[in-house]
């Protein structure tokens, strides 16, 4: 297992995202000897350069990555740069496939070539799919069925599978962790779920009420940091123990909702998207539950690792 004392340089991909910034801050505050190079193709909203954190805006091409891998001797790669599905136009699709699939392969190959000690990849629970016949709880060995109902999620599943195949293939050379967190929410994260939970008059299904696990961004940052030294090679679901129904979650954030049957919502989505861009698969995830099993990770980080339960996370989201 990697010791944090022996980690000096970290490459953090997806640095413009809220979770990446939070994780970088957590790591550098707790371990001041560590230097982080954060890269992203997006423009950050704030100044990210701090004492031990350097930000570089770059396109995710092989050449650019080769350059940074040569320039810095990375001990660890944190890949939080999966591109989301918020924009559904064709140009975004091509960019997304290139980034999520080809980009990830390039990064993994370079990590191996440049003797990186550990790679941590952030996947998502979306890979399991939101299906009516999902069991409770879904463990890490469950088939990845997201693209059965949502073909647009095939790149997310493929990216996860590229990483896990690569992980087992190279397990003797490099430590690799694939994390599949539940819905991450928090004031710094502007993902679809956080926006949905805090948007007034968002449609709420009247005919379905799936259960959800919500992970606070701070806890996710802590998991990423602790995974460096405490979690061995493998695939891990990340979720707190408690669950909450979607209706209760909306109630907790105290925003008014418009009750709509799902079949109407599927039609209305075409209009709503002009105002609020959200991924097509999202409707499916507010229809059926996808509750993941967190036991594998808890064996390594402990039973009471998470600071916030779902209700507290929602309270904090509301306060933002």
């Amino acid at each position, binding site marked *: 297992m990697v010791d944090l004392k022996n980690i000096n340089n970290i490459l953090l991909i997806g640095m413009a995202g809220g979770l990446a910034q939070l994780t970088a801050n957590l790591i550098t505050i707790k371990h001041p000897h560590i230097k982080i190079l954060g890269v992203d193709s997006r423009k950050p909203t704030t100044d990210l350069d701090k004492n031990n954190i350097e930000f570089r805006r770059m396109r995710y091409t092989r050449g650019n990555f080769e350059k940074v891998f040569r320039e810095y001797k990375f001990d660890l790669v944190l890949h939080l740069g999966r591109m989301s599905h918020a924009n559904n136009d064709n140009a975004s699709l091509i960019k997304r496939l290139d980034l999520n699939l080809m980009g990830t392969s390039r990064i993994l190959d370079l990590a191996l070539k440049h003797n990186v000690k550990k790679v941590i990849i952030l996947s998502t629970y979306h890979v399991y799919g939101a299906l009516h*016949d999902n*069991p*409770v*709880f879904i463990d890490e060995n469950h088939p990845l069925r997201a693209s059965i109902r949502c073909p647009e999620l095939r790149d997310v599943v493929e990216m996860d599978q590229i990483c896990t195949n690569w992980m087992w293939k190279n397990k003797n050379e490099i430590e690799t962790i694939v994390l599949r967190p539940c819905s991450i929410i928090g004031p710094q994260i502007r993902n679809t779920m956080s926006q949905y939970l805090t948007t007034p008059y968002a449609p709420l299904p009247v*005919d379905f009420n799936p259960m959800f696990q919500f992970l606070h961004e701070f806890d996710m940052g802590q998991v990423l940091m602790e995974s460096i030294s405490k979690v061995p090679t493998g695939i891990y679901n990340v979720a707190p123990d408690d669950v909450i129904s979607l209706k209760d979650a909306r109630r907790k954030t105290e925003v008014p909702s418009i009750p709509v049957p799902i079949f109407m919502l599927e039609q209305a989505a075409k209009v709503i998207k002009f105002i609020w861009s959200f991924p097509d698969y999202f409707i499916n995830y507010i229809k059926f539950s996808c*509750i993941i099993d967190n036991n594998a990770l808890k064996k390594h980080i402990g039973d009471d690792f998470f600071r916030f339960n779902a209700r507290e996370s929602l309270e904090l989201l509301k306060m933002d």
Partner: protein
Amino acid sequence: MFNYFKNSFNFSAFNSSLKANKFKPIFEELNQKYPKGSDPWGLNIRKSIKSLEKIYPFYKHYFKVRVLGKENVEDKAYMVVSNHTGQIAIDGMLISTAFVLEVFPPRILRPMAERFITSIPFIGSWAAQGGAVLGDRQNCINLLKKGQSILVFPEGVKGIAKSTKDYYKLQNFTKGFYRICAKLGVEILPVSVVGAEEFFPYVYQAKYLANIIGIPALPISANFIPLPSPVDIHIGKPIRIPQKISHDSSDAEITKEVKKIENAIEEMLKEGLKKRRPFFANQNLKDK
């Protein structure tokens, strides 16, 4: 017949049972058992109690449910195995109600629902809030490990969707439930329900048409609303899994043991049919 209907639904009793709220201690115990008010499978105690309050008048005064063998139930998790009758799963609802209101200590049974149920708007979420879960092996194991009792109907759709000529004929049991019990060492609690077949006394199962439409069953019934047939729920003595049986035992061994459960429920059914209360729609079935 009209008088029977008139007498079978006593509205004053309907209201008084709610007002008296004699089930307050039971509901308090349920609230203590589920302090979070919900669980990952979608159970919602508040809504479950509300549903029970609505179901109870029908349970007590419309279907006049009697529960026999309550003393066989102890304070532990069981795999409750029952025959399945009545075209729609009213029997499951009545058994679940009985295990909350009439069995001590009260418990919310977790009925294993057919896969298509969870995808039906309103019904899926209503069933989940009341305790029903998708009929999946992993769900069953996880719930039993958490000390929850499961309600299964191993006859499946074949059991519930029968034509009148096949009423009270047990269909072959599936074996999955037995392997789970063998794996976890959980006792089986046999239950037989008498009276539910007569909710819809004259039914023809249009199996060919159901196949074409792609639905599990298509009952064509003389009545659309279930008749107020008096229901008896017989709870048998718990059955332990023999030590020689494991969850990996051969199909032949498991089939033999499952057959014993089937026979036990069949015996309870026969006895139950002898003791059942008269009802105009069961007169032509009483000799079965």
